[in-house]
């Protein structure tokens, strides 16, 4: 997705003179062509995410469209208050594009993990959160939302789903309709969810926009009142949206995602997937449990 991020950004920069890119000293080599083509609109800001975020809001105040980019823990958690005050409270549009959410960089340890980004950004009124599953989906979603006047978070991953879908910003995609349960899969968590449900009589709804949450598609596709929520970050973030969408009816929910603890082991992300049950077989077992639950 990182290569697509560069391709999409450079293409939009060529077409939209308002777009300004701020890098937190990562991706600089990847953007070498943009530095040559648009020297006034791309900056390697250095390692100062708080000032970078406020600076980006200042650009936005003057009518430009900023894109800030760094690794997820630094561009979200380090400068959370700047996102809250300078973008959301001040009602300024802009784009935060992260890489390395959850444990993409497993071997680097917990300082470089970020399974909590979506959960905390979800608390900010007006914040849009986009979790693409493939490079192509990122391209579609960025072009749809980058200049919509709202602060938007794009969560890029080092992994991608095997197949792209024709996704729309703010809308869930109905990939499959069934009777026994509804699987709500977010971003790159779709891969194990789809593999797990191939021969199951369940609905699969694919969410690449987490906020604003598409409640209507869920309401129209959840007759079973059983929901399996499969997320690539801390598990259960969308639970309150699901409950609110289906209220006043009661609903049974199983949440699958990253457990709420520090993952202090190193290794590869696939090894963590195995250990945490975030695999087709792990997801399948949890879905079957819910289907058979009374």
């Amino acid at each position, binding site marked *: 997705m990182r290569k697509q991020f560069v391709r999409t950004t450079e293409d939009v920069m060529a077409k939209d003179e308002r777009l300004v890119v701020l890098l937190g000293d990562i991706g600089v080599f990847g953007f070498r062509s943009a530095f040559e083509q648009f020297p006034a609109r791309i900056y390697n800001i250095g390692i100062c995410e708080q000032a970078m975020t406020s600076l980006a809001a*200042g650009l936005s105040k*003057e009518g430009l469209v900023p894109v800030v980019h760094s690794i997820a823990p630094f561009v979200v958690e380090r400068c959370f208050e700047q996102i809250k005050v300078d973008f959301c409270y*001040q009602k300024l549009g802009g784009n935060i594009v992260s890489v390395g959410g959850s444990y993409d960089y497993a071997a680097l340890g917990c300082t470089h993990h970020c399974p909590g980004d979506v959960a905390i950004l979800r608390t900010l009124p007006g914040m849009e959160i986009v979790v693409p599953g493939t490079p192509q989906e990122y391209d579609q979603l960025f072009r749809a939302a980058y200049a919509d006047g709202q602060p938007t978070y794009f969560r890029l991953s080092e992994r991608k789903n095997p197949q792209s879908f024709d996704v729309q910003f703010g809308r869930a995609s109905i990939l499959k309709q069934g009777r026994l349960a509804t699987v709500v899969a977010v971003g790159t968590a779709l891969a194990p969810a789809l593999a797990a449900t191939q021969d199951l009589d369940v609905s699969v709804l694919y969410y690449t926009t987490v906020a604003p949450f598409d409640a209507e598609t869920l309401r129209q596709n959840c007759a079973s009142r059983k929901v399996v929520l499969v997320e690539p970050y801390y598990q259960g973030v969308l639970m309150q949206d699901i409950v609110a969408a289906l209220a006043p009816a009661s609903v049974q929910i199983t949440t699958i995602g990253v457990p709420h603890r520090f993952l202090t082991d190193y290794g590869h992300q696939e090894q963590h997937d195995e250990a945490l049950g975030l695999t087709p077989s792990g997801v399948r077992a949890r879905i079957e449990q819910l289907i058979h639950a009374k």
Partner: protein
Amino acid sequence: MRVRLNQLKRQIIAATTATKEGHIPSAFSILDIVWVLYDGVMRFNPHDPKSDDRDRFILSKGHGSLAVYAVLAEKGFFPAEELARFSTLESRLGGHPDHNKVPGIEASTGSLGHGLPFGVGVAMALRIRKVDRRVFVIVGDAECNEGSIWEAALLAAHHKLSNLTCIVDYNHSTDRALNMGDMAAKFAAFGWAATTINGHDHAAIATALLARDPQKPTAIIAETIKGHGVKQMENNPAWHHRSPSKDELEAMFQELA
């Protein structure tokens, strides 16, 4: 001029009596600077406050908002009567300024350490957009405890933002917690053109504000007195966030007559 400023000070004190809210000494600390900015340095049009052909002013130490409100009202951005409703439920003039509500306010501040990096972004945007106007930011000395101020200082110097001026309201309120020492030397070391002035001397303020280095951002360290002009408030921490009683109000009004 002093008569006019004393009138603004009386308005500021009176504004705090409706809700018993407001940081009077913080406002008096910067009132002379804000006044000089709007009375001969900055270009602006109160009837077209979003005109591109304006200089931008950002109050990074948002709790000094009353000084800015009083000056904006005096300059015609909104009626001065609104000051009497300061911080009430229906008022658009709050304890910290909101750019979505108040004409002439460029940034919604309050949490410290945001306004200067925001101003760096505004200054950078003006350069990108080839708009030849200036950006003025007032920060507090205690606000300079925040690391983001120094991140912004590095960035402004590195990117040679000569259209940016940062005024440090050095009223020494932070000395008791974290002494900031020689602020002009600090900004100079970060690559700014830095100067120290008496922050209540209008001629010195104007001279410093009108100066502009062709390559560097400008830092003006304004030595100020918190609560300037009301003896019992001056450098008295008890008044930081307090509204006067009826008797105190009368005495202060006499002092500012």
